[in-house]
């Protein structure tokens, strides 16, 4: 699964966690915080994405990405490791 596919999953999880964002265009360059996704919701999006791609890593290892693209890249790198 490549980084773009993971980004699509993240975006789908964002829309499902925060239904208000259903109709809003979201790209790899967006940050969840700027979209108005709060910290609890962000952790839920990450957890749901981990489940969807079948990856098990501590949450603290996923801290740092500044936008959806960077998060997808990091998850991609972790899933190959």
């Amino acid at each position, binding site marked *: 699964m490549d980084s773009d596919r993971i980004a699509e999953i993240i975006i789908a999880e964002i829309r499902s966690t925060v239904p208000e964002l259903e109709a809003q265009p979201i790209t790899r360059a967006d940050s969840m915080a700027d979209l108005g996704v709060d910290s609890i919701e962000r*952790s839920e999006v990450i957890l749901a994405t981990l489940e969807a791609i079948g990856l098990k890593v501590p949450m*603290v290892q996923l801290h740092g990405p500044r936008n959806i693209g960077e998060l997808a890249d990091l998850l991609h790198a972790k899933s190959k490791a």
Partner: protein
Amino acid sequence: MTRAVGIEARAAGIEAMNVYGGMACLDVKELCLHRGLDMPRFENLLMQEKTVALPYEDPVTFAVNAARPLIDALAPEERARIEMVVTCTESGIDFGKSLSTYVHAHLDLPSNCRLFEIKQACYSGTAGLQMAVNFVLAQTSPGAKALVVATDISRFALADAGAIEEWAYSEPSSGAGAVAMLVSDTPHVLRIDPGAYGNHGFEVMDTCRPGPDTEAGDADLSLMAYLDCCEGAFRDYSRRVEKADFRESFGQLCFHTPFGGMVKGAHRHLMRRLYKTPPKEIEADFQSRLAPSLAFGKRVGNTAGGSVFVALAGMLETAEINAPMRVGLFSYGSGCCSEFYSGVVTPESQARLRAMRISAALDRRHRLTIADYETLLRGESVVRFGTRDAELNHQIVPDAWPVDAAGDRLVLDAVVGYHRKYIWI
């Protein structure tokens, strides 16, 4: 549930417990609106009020005011058996001298007593409780009691704009409060399950107090560490305790509560990770097993070291308890260390906790206006860490000074040569 192998069923735990939520509070939603915070789903955060420490309230006054009703209720021969006073805090007022020395003095406790302080962010209270419980279980001094007091206030002697910005992430949730617990072999309030605990700790820089009057942190990283710990500590608990089941073993749950929304997130995380429970069931379980624990936390804000016990007290105040019931407790302290442990409460626990009339005391706090709060925030009257001499202005918020003063509340009056002088009002 089977206890860990080799542990005798000796009784130890919390004999009596009280929460002290200070003299003044602030409406959190009002604060968020005033700060212009964009919180479209504010209700999800499960916050209402927070205690704001007045300049003449410090970790000592909070601790003593929490403990005094417990000590007053003891017969002289029982008081004489308090052989350890442990203060648990991240709001220390001196690098060497512990708060426990002041607490011991103002409660007039016997001098054959161990006095010390424990620090590990919000985990401190659990570290102190377990220290005391093990002192009782070890029977090194049969019949002895320990007084454990978790006491914390938010630092808001904010030196400059940078410090204010650092603090912004946690301003709405930062509260103040103390929980006093008498620990003994007659645990009327919470009988600890001996040997039933699990830890999860690792080094992480999520939130900290890097200077005498500053707080800093990263809300995302802290939440992630909390979630990892919640799962890790419970897994360690189930390694030690045969047949432990997060859904079935505990009638109620009490978690460290930075704010209610975080507890809800952690519960959802755990239910999903452990059992893949569907969202609707998770919500129902949260309402029945965790919502009662938020009763006081949503009124005092994050009380740090005492927070998990504020949750325990809130649960005892509001949950339905008709028979002995096992409670699961989760404590997390940034930096980080965490623990999941358990104990048993009874209808008597509830009656004893309710007799402390904690809710009524919270109702009597002075409700600060935003203008008063801003005055306090400027920090001109705050006794900063390391202050040599000071006289406290008790009229800084005139309406907050109690009119019904009965001589049973301690406040800071002055600092003379670094020595804090307190008076009963």
